[in-house]
């Protein structure tokens, strides 16, 4: 049953993408439908429907949070770049995530790459290596906040956030 819902919601999403691609032109809809059906089945092979389901409303809130933070990220790097002393203190930090493996961790890693001052280097299970533009920044607090938000997107509850395993450098 959940597979049917997954296929249907993916097909609706892809149809919306097709509609945007063709700028609302209805003449190519037959071809579009074939592509949408094929793409949904391929997506099913690549990303099987898991236990983690995205909830629409928290996801929308997450997107707003994400856009706000990525604006801050861009301004933050621009500010550092334009100041003559170039205030950066780069280094690696390692964290263990409390999110379940799979899409929640993957979403977190990709989000962190666009958050202020952090870049995901490697994600191995729940172990996340971050490269930080400035290791003096409150990276851990940032990560915990994002983790909580992603947990809400997938309808999970987290008791304690990510904990730091001690970075090098």
């Amino acid at each position, binding site marked *: 049953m959940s597979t049917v819902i997954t296929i249907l919601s993916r097909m609706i999403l892809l149809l*919306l*993408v097709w*509609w*945007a*691609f*063709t*700028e*609302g032109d209805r003449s190519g809809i037959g071809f579009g439908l074939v592509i949408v059906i094929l793409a949904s089945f391929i997506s099913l092979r690549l990303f099987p429907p898991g236990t983690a389901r995205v909830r629409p409303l928290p996801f929308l809130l997450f997107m707003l949070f994400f*856009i706000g933070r*990525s*604006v801050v*990220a*861009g*301004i*933050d*790097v*621009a500010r550092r*770049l*334009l100041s003559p002393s*170039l205030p*950066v203190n*780069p280094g*690696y930090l390692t964290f263990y995530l409390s999110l379940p493996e799979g899409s929640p961790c993957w979403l977190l*890693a*990709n*989000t962190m*790459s*666009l958050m*202020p*001052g952090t*870049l*995901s*280097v*490697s994600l191995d299970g729940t172990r996340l*290596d971050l*490269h930080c*533009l400035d290791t003096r920044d409150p990276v851990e607090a940032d990560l915990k906040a994002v983790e909580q938000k992603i947990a809400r997107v997938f309808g999970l509850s987290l008791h304690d956030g990510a904990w730091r395993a001690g970075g090098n450098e």
Partner: protein
Amino acid sequence: MTEIVQMVQGVLLIAGCVFFAIGTLGLFRFSETLTRIHALTKVDNLGLGFVVLALLPGMPSLASGMKVVLIWLVALVASATSAHLIARAVRSQERGRSAGSEHHD
């Protein structure tokens, strides 16, 4: 009214271009690969975001507006993914070097 919209569009376009320029400046000012990626991904995404925002009011239909937003979203995902891949490659190269083993590129 249209004049105000056009002025806002102009300001947003200029802001977008300024951010793209700053991102490129990052390539020259930062010395390490990873800090350069920080500059390129974050600042350029913001620049593209401003350009997309500037283009939205002039779109003839909702669908073409969504197409432009889609371009921004796909660029975001692509830059996050490629940044991650480059960072991973740099990291494994560094690890190889610090382990003292010889690596041939």
